[in-house]
């Protein structure tokens, strides 16, 4: 248990100390805290140890009247190391939280103690809210009890005494926290500080006792001053947090559920009131000339209708014959017929005839050049000859070459 944490390990045993003379109470008390005991004399510091106890109790509830054998208990706790399990079981048995079904030697079946299970539920709640809800229940119950016709003055005195002590201890915790670090206060205070409701209930209980048994005025004065001390400590803790809050850190002091409820149930007026008196900038975007130019340039452009490229006016037999020309046979034939026995031939020699013939031959030679497997190459030089009156009127110089020894 960490310092300043108001859990059972510190608060409750002390408030119950007075009753510990009775052996029966002692047994209950031991069983109640068995789930938290590391060995019979101390309190666990590892939450896994409490988990083992809870797992075991759940397994017992499941097993019903069959109870559990040692192997079954081990199986239920298989997620935990065997050593940790055995140690835990020893403690739980030592404190009577788990007992043999029949107190006989070589007993194989075990049962769990109801008290321990209830105790564990109680402890879980105490860990969650530091005992606020327990205090609510306790005050409500005490209020009923002292109003009951059969309650004696002695019982009322004990009740008032116990409550006064609880409030004192609670206040003490808060005072200690308030003088400590702000982080610890922020973390712990909401579990400890009094809601108006608790103070109101305590006051009402005090009034009931004092009205019915005026003789208890001294005890009641004690109780009253304890309640005041507690309220005062709560206010101090809240005040210190309110003063040194940072700018959002205190939002954590209300539980997420409170925030959700607020968002869901608040009216427009109530929500808007939060931002009363806050001034913000009106929308004033700056449209920079450069940004305007960019925006226009980046506008989704209409796709213009593209005119078809102009067609050649020269006669052309069309695509039907040239499709077949993809076959390597045709350009091989053309190349071979031009090369004959030679390995290379100048293009000036072979590109003769009218334009469409020259075009066809050149296209075949280009195909031969580009075909990866055909053994021909077109090698162009950087020069050309021009003859404005001749035909063709200009011609790039180049050669058709055979690239290996392949010969038709």
């Amino acid at each position: 248990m960490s310092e300043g944490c108001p859990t059972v390990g510190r608060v409750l045993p002390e408030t119950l100390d007075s009753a510990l003379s009775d052996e029966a109470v002692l047994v209950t008390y031991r069983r109640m805290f068995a789930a938290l005991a590391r060995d019979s004399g101390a309190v666990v510091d590892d939450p896994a140890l409490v988990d083992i106890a809870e797992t075991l109790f759940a397994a017992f509830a499941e097993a019903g009247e069959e109870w559990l054998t040692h192997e079954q208990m081990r199986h239920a706790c298989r997620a935990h190391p065997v050593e940790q399990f055995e140690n835990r079981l020893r403690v739980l048995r030592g404190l009577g939280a788990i007992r043999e079904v029949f107190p006989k030697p070589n007993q194989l079946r075990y049962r769990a103690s109801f008290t321990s299970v209830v105790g564990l539920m109680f402890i879980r709640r105490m860990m969650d809210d530091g005992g606020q809800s327990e205090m609510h229940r306790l005050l409500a119950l005490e209020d009923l009890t002292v109003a009951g016709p059969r309650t004696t003055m002695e019982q009322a005195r004990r009740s008032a005494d116990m409550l006064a002590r609880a409030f004192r201890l609670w206040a003490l915790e808060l005072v200690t926290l308030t003088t400590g670090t702000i982080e610890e206060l922020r973390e712990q205070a909401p579990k400890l500080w009094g809601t108006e409701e608790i103070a109101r209930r305590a006051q009402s209980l005090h009034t009931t006792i004092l009205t019915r048994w005026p003789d208890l005025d001294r005890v009641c004065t004690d109780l009253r001053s304890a309640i005041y001390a507690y309220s005062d400590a709560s206010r101090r803790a809240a005040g210190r947090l309110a003063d040194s809050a940072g700018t959002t850190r205190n939002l954590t002091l209300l539980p997420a559920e409170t925030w959700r409820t607020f968002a869901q149930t608040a009216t427009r007026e109530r929500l808007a009131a939060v931002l009363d008196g806050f001034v913000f900038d009106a929308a004033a975007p700056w449209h920079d000339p450069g940004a305007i130019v960019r925006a226009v340039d980046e506008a989704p452009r209409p796709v213009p209708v593209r005119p078809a490229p102009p067609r050649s006016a020269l006669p052309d037999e069309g695509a039907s014959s040239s499709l077949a020309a993809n076959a390597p046979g045709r350009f091989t034939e053309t190349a071979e017929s031009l090369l004959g026995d030679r390995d290379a031939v100048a293009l000036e020699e072979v590109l003769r005839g009218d334009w469409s013939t020259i075009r066809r031959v050149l296209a075949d030679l280009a195909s031969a050049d580009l075909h990866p497997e055909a053994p021909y190459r077109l090698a162009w030089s950087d020069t050309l000859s021009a003859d404005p009156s001749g035909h063709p009127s200009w011609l790039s110089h180049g050669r058709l070459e055979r690239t290996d020894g392949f010969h038709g």
Partner: protein
Amino acid sequence: MGSMGEAHAEARSSGLVALSGPVPPGFVRVGEVGVPVWPDGASPSLLEEYQIAAAPVERAGETRRVLACCLRMCWADLDAEPWPGVWAAVDDVLACYRTMVGRTDDSVRSWAVGALRRLHDTGWIVLSGFGTLRLGPRCVLWTADGHVQLRELMRRIAAPVPSGEVTPVVEARDEGPDEFGDLLGAFDERRRAELVAAFVAVETAAEPVHEARFAALRDPALRRALMEMLARRGRVLQQRRDAWISGYTDAYRVTSLPEAERAVLALVLVHSVAIPRAEGLLGEDTWLSQYPVATEELRRRTLLPIGELEAALRSLRQAGLIAQQKTNEEGAGGYVPGPQFHRLTRAARARLQEELILAAGPQTPLAVAIRAKRRRHEPATPDGET
């Protein structure tokens, strides 16, 4: 805060202010409307030079293209300045826009009309309500360099023949007296330019600007002058580690948002900051958050009518009070507090926290302590606990 600072704070928080009587320093009056001007002819264009992000603009591309079309139809004489220009028919502007984007469908028209509405709301154009529009008072803020760029752009935009008679806009323009002359006069030209640059940067950037880039933020003497300049506009300089940004002075406490927008903004703050904070997710002490609230969540779990909610979200988004976060792999899209929350002073942020606690948990010990503290500090104006 002087009345001059108050006029500037009001102009900043309400958009534009109506001015009568003598024009206050730091304003130009365009017709009846006061527009704050930047010292020494500067403009937020300099953010781009420093590669600093300006406050985000809602549907920026579309809005600016529509503005270019307005300009194309209203800027009649390209040899003169764009303002005041002539009245143009809204239909002509829309026709110009349709040609620009090459689409004629209805959605293009409704987007363009939305952009016109936003431009009108922010003072860049004025819609007459009779199917015509003209350039708005903010257009006087473009500088001569800007005019050159825009003139060049105008020549590239195809425009329809104006459908009606061309009527020139007749409007007076009065410059206010020099605002910072006495302060800036004490510095040489370079320092003066540095001061103006830092002034424009902290006033217009989306986030706190790093001091490494601005001598006037690093140098204590220059910074003092900068703070004085800001103070004259009802502003304070605030430091976030080694970055700086301006905000309203704490003395200027007016409620600037309409009720529905305040309510929706409060909702976003609860969902995006308070709840993650209560669940221990938010580490830093800031009102900015990376935990968006889904629009669906806002729609379903609130008493506010949906229409009102949507309208308020739109306005808040345009003002940079909330920011939309895109859906990521985890599907966590939605709204977070916007860049304006960088500008809240420490006191304002602390007060916001208290107001939220008072509203959501009025009976908690913390709320009681806050009310008690306020009574202690402000005995003259008791609020809370009644």
